[in-house]
């Protein structure tokens, strides 16, 4: 009896490493499918539409609100130090370095990642993937690779849009409602946000997050147990794992980039 918890731990450990291994093999297969895609840009465009364009609305709205909240909170805090003029810097740095990539990554996992997993999982459950194989069409190339690539490409664009909209959201609240000087808002921002340190690093973060979330989403879909319960579990796993991975990676990347 005393072995039970240990056994369970061991078993879940084994299954964890098994999944990790499968995930990596799967990633290699997906990457191997990418070159063939270059000949068929239509497939990618179609997927960028469902992964990127359909996520755009939630990104725009969230970006605007996050920017506005930053403007409000930042103003109240900075006003204590008499440093309202630095509002632009505070909003821009928070967005570009952290919130842009991270919140976009989380929203992307919730909106696009879960949809990818569910779609691929259902294709598996309804034998569509198997059917493609029997039609001598490799689902890795035809189904998985374009979705992965679309997710990977869309994410940095979405994060950039999020940050840009957020900066205007902060501008709207700070300058429009709270009376921060418009010139100070922009000039302080420009003086203190560095293209290399802040913008590039933010973009790199969003590329890494896009890679991770797209990978998790297509893998969970492909690895799903082909039943309705299995697909729903896989979808949940995509959102949970993506969120954890995004936040964990964010810490690692931040430490690497800004931790000198």
């Amino acid at each position, binding site marked *: 009896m005393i072995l039970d918890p240990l056994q369970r731990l061991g078993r879940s450990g084994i299954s964890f490493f098994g999944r990790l291994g499968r995930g990596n093999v799967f990633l290699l297969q997906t990457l191997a499918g990418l070159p063939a895609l270059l000949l068929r840009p*239509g497939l990618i*465009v*179609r997927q*960028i*539409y469902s992964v*990127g*364009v359909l996520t*755009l609305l939630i990104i725009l709205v969230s970006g605007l609100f996050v920017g506005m909240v930053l403007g409000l909170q930042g103003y109240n805090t900075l006003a204590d*130090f008499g*440093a309202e003029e*630095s509002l632009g810097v505070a909003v*821009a740095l928070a967005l*570009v370095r952290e919130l842009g990539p991270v919140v976009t990554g989380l929203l992307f996992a919730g909106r696009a990642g879960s949809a990818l997993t569910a779609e691929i999982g259902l294709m598996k459950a309804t034998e569509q993937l198997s059917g493609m194989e029997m039609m001598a069409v490799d689902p890795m190339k035809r189904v998985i690779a374009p979705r992965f690539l679309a997710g990977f490409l*869309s994410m*940095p*664009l*979405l994060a*950039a*849009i999020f*940050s*840009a*909209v957020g*900066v205007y959201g902060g501008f709207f609240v700070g300058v429009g409602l709270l009376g921060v000087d418009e010139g100070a808002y*922009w000039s302080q*921002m*420009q*003086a*203190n*946000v*560095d*293209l290399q340190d*802040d*913008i590039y690093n933010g*973009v790199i973060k969003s590329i890494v997050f896009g890679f991770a979330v797209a990978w998790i989403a297509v893998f969970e879909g492909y690895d799903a147990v082909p039943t309705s319960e299995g697909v729903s579990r896989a979808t949940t796993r995509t959102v949970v794992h993506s969120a954890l991975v995004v936040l964990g990676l964010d810490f690692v990347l931040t430490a690497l980039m800004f931790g000198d």
Partner: protein
Amino acid sequence: MKQSKAVEIGVGLFVAAGMAALFMLAMKVSNLSTGNIGESYTIIAAFDNIGGLKVRSPVTVSGVRVGRVDSISYDFETFEAVVGLRIGTAYDKFPEDTTASIFTAGLLGEQYVALDPGGSDDNLEPGDRIQLTQSALVLEQMIGQFLYNTAASEGE
């Protein structure tokens, strides 16, 4: 086929919006437009202590940004920090006895180099060394000094 047209247009707009956002971040939010000072020359200043000065920190004169810190190194001959200042060629008429000081922008802001022109007739040439410098104020030193002074005055 009509549907795929709409998809293509949607994706086109999306990519364009993403690019525009990146461009906006680069041009309007970051220091790309201000940090780029075009043609420049370098002069050198040595400080006892540069505090939190970093490469790319601004160099200003009377609050006008004229360049940025290009390099920071340590000289074992003089035991001083040697800072290279890249100044735009538009600002090439600084007198020889210009003072370079390290200040902090606001209470919590970053540190920058402020130049204060002197009265000499000769101008600094590229590669010249600024003779008169004022180090950064280090908070701990100030506090230490303050405590020391207080203790000294109480002891009297």
